[in-house]
């Protein structure tokens, strides 16, 4: 066969073959030439991603032999794409013409050997070619080149569409809903690859998911595949879970049943008896899919991802959200960031679905540990905590325990978190006047030590109400008028050339306990006065970052000129009693 070099030549050659096949049935064998190019591409893909499904295609290997002559370098992705396009056009035309066998497909050999009519033989044979083409295309979904993958996907979806319109099986009764389940399942399986990260391809696939029927069948197919894969392998690879999650999270149901359902496969008339039409069925499928997915032991990172989208895109669409209770409570018990994330879902269940959760606040209390101010989900957690503690029916001991614990934790928090948590505590005290003893207890006795027990997990027994928020206290005059003499940091000035007489100027150290950041110390000093009535909205403070604080500080205008250090600099490390000079040397 004559072929020009390069992709142009390939296109021309394939074009000729295509014309020939479509023009007369006599030239049908040219199909093999087209498929051959695909075959090589698919093999290359298999070579890249060696997988278990390679063996399944053993039966079709026979077809490979004649086309080996076509081109030794047909791995070229350009050529493969040409071949895919040609196949697409060819079988689309054949499907539309109805030149493929309809019904249960008999085996190729028996038909060819049998004595049926030539047309039937041709149709069966062609259907077999179509079948093998689909298999090739599915294998191409694992090709190394993204263009090929994309093209293969779109071609397969076109087949799905055409097959839906011209079904290859006989309807069991009139008006029966027909969908190319086999083909579509194969597509989904190709998408949920075990080896490659298909997130790009899945994002392409996402646009098909807008159609009701595709979404429905995707959910069904995904459920099946997850079950099958999980059963087959003891240790399911991480990429599969990742792909599955990407696919699952891409499925989003409409909030309400809408009348105009969009179908990918065009139907002349929609029947109300079809399951696909009803949102309820979609919800059921959705629920099955997620429950089936979450049933398995997932990697830890994936749990986080699931929990992040749980409240927003999973729970509202489940037919029975209460089925998530087990999963969420388990996640809540795990501790750490996962617990934080599970809170949101739990809250929805408690709030909207009557979930009784006896130790909810106790566990919430347990979640408060020093890392809470450093984790990524800080804003989310405090938003929810604000919500949980906003009820005025909470017992005072509980709120007091929270306030005390938070202020204790604030001793290790960075300024941006402090700016948020201090108003938070003040809001708690405002909402629950009974807790004001924490900041205002004029009749209390002097205590030897803080009665609050930080290790106690039960807020009821933490004795927070007997305590006070000493952590927040900003200023307290030092009991002794002079600082401890051994303090190396207290800088004493010897002024002027009067070496004998030292004027100690920092004697009046007021022992101001202050945070180094002015805004924080101002926020903390709020408790020194009686609290104002209105609450402070912490919403704008939740997302505050240190960089924003920094920018704000830089932009703040100074009215007068900048104050200057009046002790002259002497060197890089500063004066001799500076810590830097004590502990570091220049050489």
């Amino acid at each position: 066969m004559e072929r020009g070099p390069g992709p142009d030549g390939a296109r021309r050659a394939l074009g000729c073959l295509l014309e020939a096949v479509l023009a007369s049935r006599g030239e049908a064998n040219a199909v093999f030439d087209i498929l051959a190019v695909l075959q090589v591409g698919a093999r290359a893909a298999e070579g890249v991603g060696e997988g278990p499904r390679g063996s399944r295609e053993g039966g079709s290997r026979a077809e490979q032999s004649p086309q080996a002559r076509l081109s030794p370098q047909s791995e070229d992705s350009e050529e493969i794409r040409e071949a895919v396009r040609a196949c697409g056009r060819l079988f689309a035309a054949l499907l539309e013409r109805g030149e493929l066998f309809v019904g249960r497909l008999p085996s190729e050999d028996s038909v060819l050997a049998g004595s049926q009519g030539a047309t039937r033989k041709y149709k069966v044979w062609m259907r077999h070619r179509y079948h093998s083409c689909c298999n090739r295309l599915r294998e191409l979904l694992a090709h190394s080149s993204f263009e090929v993958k994309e093209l293969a996907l779109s071609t397969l979806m076109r087949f799905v569409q055409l097959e839906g319109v011209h079904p290859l099986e006989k309807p069991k009764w009139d008006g029966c809903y027909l969908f190319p389940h086999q083909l579509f399942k194969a597509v989904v399986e190709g998408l949920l690859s075990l080896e490659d990260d298909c997130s790009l391809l899945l994002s392409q696939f996402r646009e098909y998911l807008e159609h009701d029927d595709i979404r429905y069948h995707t959910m069904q197919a995904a459920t099946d595949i997850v079950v099958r894969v999980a059963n087959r392998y003891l240790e399911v690879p991480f990429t599969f879970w990742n792909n599955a999650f990407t696919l699952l999270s891409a499925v989003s149901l409409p909030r309400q049943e809408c009348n105009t359902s969009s179908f990918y496969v065009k139907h002349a008339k929609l029947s109300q008896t079809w399951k696909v039409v009803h949102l309820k069925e979609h919800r059921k499928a959705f629920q099955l899919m997620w429950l089936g997915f979450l049933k398995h032991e997932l990697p830890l990172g994936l749990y986080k991802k699931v929990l992040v989208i749980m409240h927003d895109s999973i729970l509202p669409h489940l037919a029975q959200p209460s089925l998530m209770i087990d999963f969420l409570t388990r996640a809540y018990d795990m501790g750490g960031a996962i617990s934080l994330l599970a809170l949101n879902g739990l809250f929805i269940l408690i709030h909207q679905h009557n979930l009784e959760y006896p130790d909810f606040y106790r566990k919430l209390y347990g979640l408060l540990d020093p890392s809470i101010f450093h984790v990524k989900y800080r804003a989310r957690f405090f938003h929810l905590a604000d919500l949980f503690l906003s009820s005025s029916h909470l017992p005072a001991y509980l709120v007091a325990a929270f306030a005390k614990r938070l202020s204790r934790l604030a001793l290790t928090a960075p300024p941006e978190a402090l700016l948020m948590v201090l108003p938070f505590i003040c809001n708690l005290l405002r909402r629950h006047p009974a807790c004001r003893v924490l900041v205002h207890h004029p009749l209390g006795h002097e205590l030897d030590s803080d009665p609050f027990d930080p290790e106690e997990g039960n807020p009821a027994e933490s004795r927070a109400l007997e305590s006070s928020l000493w952590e927040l206290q900003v200023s307290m005059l030092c009991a002794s008028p002079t600082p401890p003499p051994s303090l190396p940091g207290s800088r004493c000035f010897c002024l002027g050339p009067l070496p004998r007489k030292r004027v100690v100027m920092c004697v009046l150290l007021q022992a101001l306990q202050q945070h180094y950041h002015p805004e924080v110390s101002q926020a903390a000093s709020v408790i020194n006065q009686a609290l104002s009535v209105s609450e402070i909205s912490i919403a704008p403070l939740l997302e505050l970052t240190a960089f924003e604080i920094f920018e704000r500080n830089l932009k703040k205008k100074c009215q007068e000129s900048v104050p200057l250090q009046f002790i002259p600099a002497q060197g890089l490390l500063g004066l001799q009693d500076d810590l830097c000079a004590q502990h570091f040397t220049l050489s």
Partner: protein
Amino acid sequence: MGKARLAAFRRKGSGAPAGAQSGRARPNPNPFEVKVNRQKFPVLGRKARHAVGQPGVSRARAVQKRTQTLLKEYKERDKSNVFTDKRFGEYSSSMSPEEKMMKRFALEQQRQHEKKSIYNLNEDEELTHYGQSLADIEKHNDIVDSDSDAEERGTLSAELTAAHFGGGGGLLHKKTLQQQGEDEEKPRSRKELIEELIAKSKQEKRERQAQREGALELTEKLDQDWKEIQTLLAHKTPKPENRDQKEKPKPDAYDMMVRELGFEMKAQPSNRMKTEEELAKEEQERLQKLEAARLRRMRGEDMHGDSRKPKHLSADDLNDDFVLDKDDRRLLSYTDGKMSVEEEQSREASDGESEEDHHEDPSDENLEESSDPDGHSDLDSDTETEEDCGRPDTEPRLAPQKRLANNGHKAREAARNELPYTFAAPESYEELKSLLSGKTMEEQLLVVERIKTCNHPSLAAGNKAKLEKLFGFLLEYVGDLATSDTPDLGVIDKLVVQLYNLCQMFPDSASNSIKFVLRDAMHEMEGSVEARGRVAFPGLDVRHRQRETQAPCREPDVGLDPGSPGSRPGLQLIYLKIAGMLFPTSDFWHPVTTPALVCMSQLLTKCPVLSLHDVVKGLFVCCMFLDYVSLSRRFIPELVNFLLGILYIATPNKHGQGYTLVHPFRASGKNSELLLVSDEEDTATWQRTGLSLRWASGLKAQTKTEANHTRLSCLAVCVALVKHCVLLYSSLPAFHDIMRPLRALLTEHLANRTHPPELQELCQSTLSTLTDMGKQSQRCRPLVCEKSKPVPLRLFTPRLVKVLEFGRKQGSSKEEQERKRLIHKHKREFKGAVREIRRDNQFLARMQLSETLERDAERKRKVKQLFNSLATQEGEWKALKRKKFKK
């Protein structure tokens, strides 16, 4: 009764416009002729125009006027011929009576001249005044009462005044009254009158002149006499002078006081040279003042000032928090007896002064320097100032510097041949770099010094900007030095002093450039946090880290990869340090140091500790942090966390109780035993030394032993810092809670016997201090809120709107107002006109009535007369008849 009378009054007279004037003319009017208009409200300061009306007078005037005009017209109503006065200017109101007279006189003369005396050459016409011949007056036979004139000096005689200003009419009238007989000679007398007038004024003038001459003569004579006597009275001169002064208005005590004060100021003697002690004392006072200002800023009193002070709330305060932004009223004061407006300084006296001091000091020095060509004095003065405020134990440190200066002197002798004396200020960073590169430390310092001297702001106008730029370039240069492969920390060490001096000169631009550097660094850090979720610990300088797109050095162990770009100096550690030296770190809020603090906090929380370098850098940041707050003693949670983490990575990993690690550290993992030293030999040979800053800038550990030694040093520094923190925060109420995790870890360290004895000891002492301080710290007293004052009720003052006009005219546009005014005026005029017409009609009716009555009376009289005569006739006739009968 009273009401009726009032009504009667009113009826009597309505509208007496010139009542007040006529009242003035007649000071004691008959109270029954006066109508008093009652005022509703007495208003102070308002003149009541129509308080008193005189209806009788005004009516009389009105009637008189009508008689003259209306009645005249009425009487001439049926007459066709008109009497016209053809005298010149009789009806022209524009001419004054004198003018009229003059003109008439001239016309008359002309007429006479034409008619009669064309040929009469000799006969002079006789001029008259008031009918008297002026020729007679010339002869002074009729001197008009000169005696009385002399008596009332300076005032014109009544006659003269009347003649000049009152017009001739009055006088004429008077004259006619006086001399009724001479009426025929009217034109003559007028001429005489004028002549008399002229003569009189001339005479008066002459008299005045004579008097003046006489007075002058007398004064001269008196002076001469005085001179003669003066010699006799020489010793008693002050007295008469005093007497003279007494005539002046005596200045009051206040003015005298002001004068005196003014003179006192001027008279102050110039300051004498101060002794050493006094100078020292002054310096001490200055520092005390600065320290006081610093303390104030540290407590943030400037910020809280308004909230802490009991704010004055006036009763009229609307509680809307409206405050005048700035009270820019100037205080009035007097200097040298003149009023002057005091500057605002008094408010921030100490602050302003301190800054002025800052500004002045270096400039003074520099002025001296500029006069001194080879720039020795600056070094001397520098050392002097250092001596001034350094305390004795810093002196040994200074001494070598001095020596260095002396050595440098010799070295410079040699270098002077190469170094030019003047340098243009560099316009770009490259310029500065080319100036400084390749020179020794001393030379570099000298170059910078000379640039500074040659471009002192007092020398030329643009120098200020140049030096401000120089600060930025130097900063960049320092950064470059720190970044270079072999960081030249010595040069930086010295350049810091220059930076300090420049900063003292231009605080604003210096703060801006440091802020700029910090912002750059933070932006970069933010970017990398967002991109990778973490950020590498910066080195001594940061901004150049972008060029090296490296992963942070990950080697946990000895093999601190020599070429690893991660070990290259990064961020602004050096800039942070410099910022702390240039600006006060203890301020409650400061435009530079507060962002720097945030920056350090970010370094301690965001940068993971992955290598020994990171530990050293982190410890350096900790030291800086503690130095920043050493005066203000503020609490730094991040620092405590960091130290906890460092202590943790020096222990073998087994999670103990009582502490939780936070972000940059993890309880387990790759770097969780970074500082653990297991080699006993290294432990034994370790000596406690200061950590080298070169570690932070990428020093590589040569051997494993060296690395281990560094680890131990790090740990020692860490424990020392913990101890420092313990002392620093011992007064905090939450001291126990802050220190609990540290205490737990330290106990663990003590339990670990593998540490060298010195370190053990340090741990032990820290722990014991911790316990002591814990015991010392006061007991927990429950919190009590500050009592707040009850909030006063809101009081509302009425809204005051200035009303300029009353009535309906208010509140419309200008045109509308004008229109309304005109309408109003028209209405009033119309009413007035109607009233006038009505009165005229009444007057006419009255006149007609009186005419009719008169006519009737006349007729009656005539009829009576007729009847009378008839009766008489009849009587006579009857009598005659009777006589006849009798006869």
